[in-house]
């Protein structure tokens, strides 16, 4: 794998740090006019999603990490693993609950999502920014309500709970922003 110097640290670059794959978030060059140059780097650990700050001497190097984001189709959940498939090669990958994490709340069979691979094994799963899901449970709205107001909780087919306006009914399909877990709109069948 390639080796990267602090000068090449760009946002998004994947590197190995303390044996974990990490992504560079931010890299600031700090140099006193008459002194040592440093790079202060914000790094996300891709395994734990934790963000840490580290300082390097300018010119120090880190090994690159073989991490790639792949568009895959979510197939099914066998109870222990969730299965994903590359659309062009039909190659399949499986990931356990620890790796899938909160993405499980937004994964519907056949939907596309992003699977991050590290050394060709799933490391993390990111759902599409917007997903369409069915409401399986919500209180009936009070007659006359149109929109606005506080809304009400609605349980979706994947188990996620989002707040929806009062006029939205059980059995309807809604569009949700997975980054904020917010209701966007109803989806006409």
């Amino acid at each position: 794998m390639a080796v990267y110097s602090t000068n090449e640290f760009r946002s998004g670059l994947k590197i190995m740090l303390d044996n974990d794959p990490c992504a560079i978030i931010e890299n600031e060059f700090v140099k006193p006019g008459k002194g040592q140059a440093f790079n202060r780097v914000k790094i996300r650990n891709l395994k734990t999603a934790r963000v840490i700050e580290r300082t390097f001497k300018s010119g120090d190097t880190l090994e690159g990490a073989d991490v790639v984001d792949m568009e895959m189709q979510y197939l099914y959940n066998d109870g222990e693993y969730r299965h994903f498939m590359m659309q062009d090669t039909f190659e399949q990958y499986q990931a356990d609950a620890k790796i899938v994490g909160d993405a499980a709340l937004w994964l519907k069979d056949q939907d596309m999502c992003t699977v991050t691979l590290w050394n060709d094994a799933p490391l993390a799963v990111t759902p599409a920014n917007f997903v369409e899901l069915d409401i399986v449970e919500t209180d009936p709205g009070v007659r006359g309500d149109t929109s606005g107001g506080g809304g009400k909780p609605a349980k979706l087919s994947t188990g996620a709970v989002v707040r929806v306006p009062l006029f939205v009914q059980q059995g309807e399909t809604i569009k949700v922003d997975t980054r904020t877990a917010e209701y966007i709109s109803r989806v006409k069948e």
Partner: protein
Amino acid sequence: MLSRIRAFFAQRGVLEVETPLLSHASGTDPQLAFFTSNYDTPPTTQTLFLQTSPEFAMKRLLASGSGSIYQICKAFRNGEAGRFHNPEFTILEWYRVGLDLTHLMDEIEALFNDLFEGQLGTPQRIAYSTIFAQHTGLDALTFSHQAYCAFAKRENLHDAITLCGESHALWLDFLFSFCVQPHLGKNALCLVYDYPACQSSLARLNADNPLLTERVEVFINGVELGNGFYELTHAEEQNARFDAEIETRKSENLPPVTKDTRLLAALETGLPDCAGMAIGLDRVLMILAKSAMISDVLSFDVTRA
């Protein structure tokens, strides 16, 4: 900004000069990387260096009796790019014959007052060790590895321990950059003077306290804008510092430099007692324009040059 600077120095009788950007020699500072260029005069080729600052050439003028001078020019530092760095940048550098550091600080304050039309708060002057102790509780002049490490652990700066090791100068660079500098000069000029001797570069050591050096740095809003010295005029001392830095460059596998013997010769004939100051004008412009990136105030930064 440029016309104001020129008016400021014209009023004070300081002469504007121009010196070569390309030189046969370069500074030996291990912290500054330079650009080189080939000068073809068949059958031979000579390596010329792009200046990292106009300091040496201007000192040669001073030694030949120019009197007080200033210059606005480009300087080049290889490998420096970031929010506050571009490898090619504009320097204002001036030398005042007969002025000491205190009077130089008066002049810096007057210049910034002109440039900012009084929009800055009251300027602050503070000694390095005082401001260092305020923000870290550590003694900047006497190095205690144990105390410095304990501070780094407490502040969650574990990287400092591995990066800086036993080097006092490195520790000071690290702690000053990350723990002190960001707090300096909130919308006001902050002048830090009496630098520790290990950070002396081309400054004179303090005559009364060998732990201190006659150096001043200028900050606004945590941004380093410039650096000034009560200049070292002693040729032998300068030669010794060059040699020490050349040795450091060798041990760190840095590109070799040519020692500026013409500067040393000029110092031998006698550099008058003087104080000199260099200001990064791009950064001053950043603050005037309230920009977050140096690229905002450049026509084209190095990635688009």
